[in-house]
């Protein structure tokens, strides 16, 4: 397969699957599911092909595709992959495949479910691979609608509320992003050429590399704030996070896996791919707030998780806490008198943040899956009404404890590397922030161990339907083993991922470091005194 075609194939293979499903008989449940498995597996296989074709020593975009789409507005169908997107594409392929395997518990209107599921996957892959802001925006919206229906139709008792909340939050984010998009479009227009949606081109303008064309400081700051809020809702960053617990609690298990495993990463990806490269001055100007919000999310999420009694809500808040590290790592851009200080620590923070996204993709998807496994059996999620599951379902208990420890940040499992690297890089930025973020390790240990104790340990199960507790099925065990296997792989040999993304991230940092920040120095001194 030619490389030009590969990216498009990855994005649209799920759509093809959805089309095939749409002409099939809705009653043929087994056949429908088979198509679903096959499509997600094939997509994952294609992402592995992408991995094989990918050259990790190149920092820039690879396998770029560019075709005219809407000529009047200079909109192009432009795709490309670099280290940052590659890893997330791999994650998407994997999580979607596993979520599809986990979809056996869905019984209602399976055809519609599968079609929406596959469309969602197309949207997510498109977001990670598009290099045109307009195309990015389109995929962003494409992903939004299936999610709304997946929560709103196949969700729990309060699904309408949750779906609406999710939709509104995300929509507000998209609208802000749209404004920024237009600002860039008109800002990049010159007398000779129309505006551009090309993210790479916009980034060059933003970094002052295009002669005679600059995004002014004010534009950068405004656009950054808009973009940041848009993406922060997705991450989610405190205080834009309250959609997440509701959406997770109501969403069916596989959708929770995707939501936590992939969707949240789009926020972090957007900040890395769009907000920072295009608005370096805005980013630097706001870095203090970003770091603060990151640290706040870590602590806030951990505390909130501790007080939950709903198992899924607890895991959802742990996501808030873990994604705080992502924001922290991205934003530790220390500037002193117009010069970046300790760029290597920032690189470490950025790499750590990216790694944390992958690690969280594995561990949180796993945690939600583990909650789903027990929910499918006893149909309740009250943490205080479990107990003794380790004895009743030893294999399940072992896998679940392993995955929860990955979330806890135990060395040798994936969560540790991302957390500790971002925290280590933070001291260079601000010692107090670093210390507060480090205190998250205690809180995280607290709420996860307490949960493990209440759910898995103890002599007997205390909730309803004790007769329904049956050993874990091979299919479920397979998903658990795959996730735990990846958690161990990433934890023991993180270089496997760092090697893929390092060049791209370092290039980004090097580019941003070179941006002239002299005009900002004054603002920062004022702010930071």
């Amino acid at each position, binding site marked *: 397969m030619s490389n030009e075609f590969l990216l498009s194939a990855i994005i649209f293979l799920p759509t093809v699957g959805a089309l095939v499903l749409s002409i099939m008989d809705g009653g043929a449940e087994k056949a429908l599911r088979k198509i679903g498995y096959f499509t997600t597996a094939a997509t994952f296989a294609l992402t592995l092909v992408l991995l094989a074709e990918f050259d990790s020593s190149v920092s820039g975009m690879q396998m770029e595709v560019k075709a005219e789409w809407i000529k009047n507005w200079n909109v192009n169908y432009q795709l490309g992959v670099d280290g940052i997107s590659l890893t997330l594409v791999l994650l998407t392929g994997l999580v979607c495949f596993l979520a599809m395997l986990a979809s056996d518990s869905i019984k209602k209107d399976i055809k519609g479910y599968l079609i929406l599921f596959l469309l969602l996957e197309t949207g997510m892959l498109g977001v990670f691979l598009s290099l045109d802001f307009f195309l990015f925006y389109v995929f962003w919206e494409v992903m939004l609608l299936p999610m709304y229906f997946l929560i709103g139709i196949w969700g729990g008792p309060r699904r309408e509320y949750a779906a609406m909340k999710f939709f509104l939050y995300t929509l507000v984010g998209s609208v802000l992003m749209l404004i920024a998009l237009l600002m860039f479009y008109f800002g990049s227009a010159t007398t000779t050429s129309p505006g551009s949606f090309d993210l790479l081109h916009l980034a060059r303008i933003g970094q002052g590399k295009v002669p005679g064309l600059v995004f002014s400081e004010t534009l950068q700051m405004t656009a950054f704030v808009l973009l940041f809020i848009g993406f922060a809702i997705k991450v989610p960053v405190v205080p834009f996070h309250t959609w997440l617990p509701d959406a997770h609690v109501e969403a069916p298990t596989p959708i929770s896996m995707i939501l936590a495993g992939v969707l949240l990463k789009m926020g972090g990806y957007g900040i890395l791919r769009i907000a920072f490269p295009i608005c370096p001055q805005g980013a630097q100007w706001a870095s203090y707030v970003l770091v603060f919000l990151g640290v706040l999310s870590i602590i806030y999420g951990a505390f909130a998780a501790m007080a939950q009694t709903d198992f899924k809500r607890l895991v959802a808040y742990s996501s808030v806490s873990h994604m705080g590290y992502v924001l922290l790592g991205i934003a530790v851009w220390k500037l002193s008198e117009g010069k970046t200080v300790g760029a290597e620590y920032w690189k470490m923070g950025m790499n750590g943040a990216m790694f944390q996204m992958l690690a969280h993709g594995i561990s949180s998807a796993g945690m939600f899956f583990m909650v789903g496994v027990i929910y499918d059996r006893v149909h309740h999620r009250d943490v205080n009404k479990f107990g003794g599951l380790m004895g009743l379902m030893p294999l399940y208990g072992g896998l679940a404890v392993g995955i929860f420890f990955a979330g806890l940040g135990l060395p040798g499992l994936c969560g540790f590397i991302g957390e500790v690297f971002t925290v280590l890089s933070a001291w260079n930025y601000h010692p107090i922030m670093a210390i507060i973020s480090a205190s998250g390790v205690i809180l995280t240990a607290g709420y996860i161990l307490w949960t493990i104790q209440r759910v898995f*340990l103890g002599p007997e199960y205390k909730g309803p339907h004790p007769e329904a507790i049956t050993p874990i099925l091979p299919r479920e065990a397979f998903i658990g083993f795959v996730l735990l296997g990846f958690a161990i792989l990433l934890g023991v040999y993180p270089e496997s991922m760092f090697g893929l993304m390092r060049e791209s991230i370092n290039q980004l940092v090097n580019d941003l470091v070179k941006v002239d920040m002299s005009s900002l120095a004054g603002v920062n001194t004022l702010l930071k005194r």
Partner: protein
Amino acid sequence: MDPQTYQSTGEMLRNLLTLAWLLPLAGFVLEVFAGYWSHRLSRAAAYSAVFCIAAGFVCSFAALMYWGHQTHWSALESHASPADHHDVLKYFSGTYYTLAEFGKLRIAIDYHIDSLTLVMFTMVTLIATMIHIFAIGYMSDELTEHYEDHQVHTAHGHFHRPGRFYMFFAYLSLFSFSMLGLVLAGNVFQVFVFWELVGVCSYFLIGFYFERKSASTAANKAFIMNRVGDFGFLIGLMILWTWFGTFQFNERVESDANGRDVVMPGLFDMLRDDHGNVTVLPANDHDSYARVFLADPGHSGALKHEGHKEGKTMPYFLLVVAGLGIFAGCVGKSAQFPLQTWLPDAMEGPTPVSALVHSATMVAAGVYLAGRFYPMFLPEVLLTIAYVGCITLFMAATIAVVATDIKRVLAYSTISQLGYMMLGIGVGGWTAGLFHLITHAFFKSLMFLCSGSVIHGCHHEQEMPKMGGLIRKMPITAYTMLVGVIAICGLAIPGISIFGIKIAFSGYHSKDAIIATAMTFSQLNGSHFLLFVVPLLGAGITAFYMFRLWFYTFIGQPRDHHVYDHAHESPVVMWAPLIVLSFFAAFVAFKGEAGSLFKLLLDTEPASVAHGLHDVGLAGDLNFPSHVGIEENHKAAGLYALLVAVMGTTLAYLFYGARVLNPAEVKRQFAGVHNFLVEKWQFDILYDAAFVRPVHVIAKWFVAFDRNVLDGFLHATARTAVSIATLDRRFDETVVDGLVNLVGNVTYDAGRSLRYVQTGRLRQYVMFIVLGVVGIWIVMRLFAA
């Protein structure tokens, strides 16, 4: 040693230790999977675990011998100061693989092998092997499909579950792997990694009987308390990472991709020069802080010539904070004040675990790290370490006096002894502290196993008031225990020596070394006299409570005949390890400071220790003793310690052996103090009130904030939007639609009223035409006019 021999020696040592390190991991994987899918009654998991760790011991011991052979046992020759040999590299280090690399920053899985590593490896693998073997017997009641847990009560009586024999050995293997990794680690980040891993193994092992609420709570407590310490550890790591840019202990030369030699910087070489001195730049006009000079990697250390040095500086206080941070990790792991409360609760785990994890190895890891990281500790940090150790050893010893659970006495004794080690390191007795670590590991694991044997023999009875006279039922256990007790108390026969060798067990030598150092320290720094008085007093208390335990358990008349009648000596698989360990507990420190163990450790002693330090610290008033200074006090200190220990022993004998004095009487008289001690100095209550509950309250606040403020805001916004929409709808319905409807209605009404004209009668129409014509004519006429 020429470079080639050096290299080949390093590779050989690395291979041996790596094998010893990874075998238990392989064992773990094998045991956990094979165990899950195999028969519950199979002992195969135990044999696999024993094989792995025993093979590890063989490798470690071989490595130690090989190292000695290659260095011609130069470590054992007596030399005044090990620092004189700094032209020879004493350590072998290298990288297994890189975890991540960011420009010049690199984090890797390294190894660092010196005599301390080798001794630790040998000690850990030896003790672990013994404990593994012991556990085959001790855990044999798990070899069943229906294990009855007497401590868990359900609605249907006692709780039954399938045995978890294989899981226990899998955990033990995982722990052995983690512990060896910790010792082998070549950088402090890697120490942190394995630090957490031993912590989680400890969590699993404490919570082995996870059906028991007390066990799972104790496991949580242990892990979280350790995490509190690790929080400090992490802060220390952040500071070091930011200012030094490396985690490696010592520097080394590596070939890069182009085959050139690159100096990989090391923390110690950056901070200290060849003589182990730190360059402190006092505060001046430019700089309100005192600063520490850090040599630029590549221009410093033993690998390069001395002379021209370049580098940077960092604030002195930050390095102190970093040191305190790392030490906080040690405090957590070694259960020092104020994080000591988890260790007694950790006795919920099976006794072999208490012996291996919570006395001999894991808890000693804090001391090991404090020793390994000694060069990074500035005098202020060392003083803090000394005081923390001092407080801990006293506090734990006092609690041990009133504890009645046999394992808890040993647990408090462990805390107390760890305090001694910390104190030793803190007052500049590097070798003394680590010496005590090794000897303590042997006699304390021995005593724990003995207590395990007692518990096993008494059918899981742990309360000493129900025992007594057991020496008649289990003599081997009793006498091996006595060896341990004598060792820990530091008893010896004074004045008599055979061929110049003192007649004393290991604890005498190591405790003596610590007390001698502390005594010298307090002589040099008069204001810190407590650092000598308290450990001396502690030695007496130690002797008292240890003999109290022994007399209580083994001597006198049985207090509970039910327990006594069913008691029996343990099987050979359990008492054989006791014999082996008691041998080591007695003789591992053979010849004391002239012996090979002490010499081996001395070989790794940091350069600055031997000569002592004078007028250091920011205030410039701290002095650390030199070897010569300690030597002068050695005899006196040994005598004092022995005297106090004998007093303690005598007192214990009077109370519990001869029963001349009545302990209940004393208890009544000092009821307040007794209660205070039984309540463990109220720490659990204090922490619960000061931390646990506030955390839960804050957590509730945050959730309430989410629900009321954030969601409240969201809901208010939504409600506002809905009400605006309602208003809009009203306006549309009334005003806009009203206008449109009005036009329509008027038109309709007009048409309706005109229809009456249309009668359909022809003649009328004609009349209308006529009238119309006439009318038009009239109008025209009128207007025309």
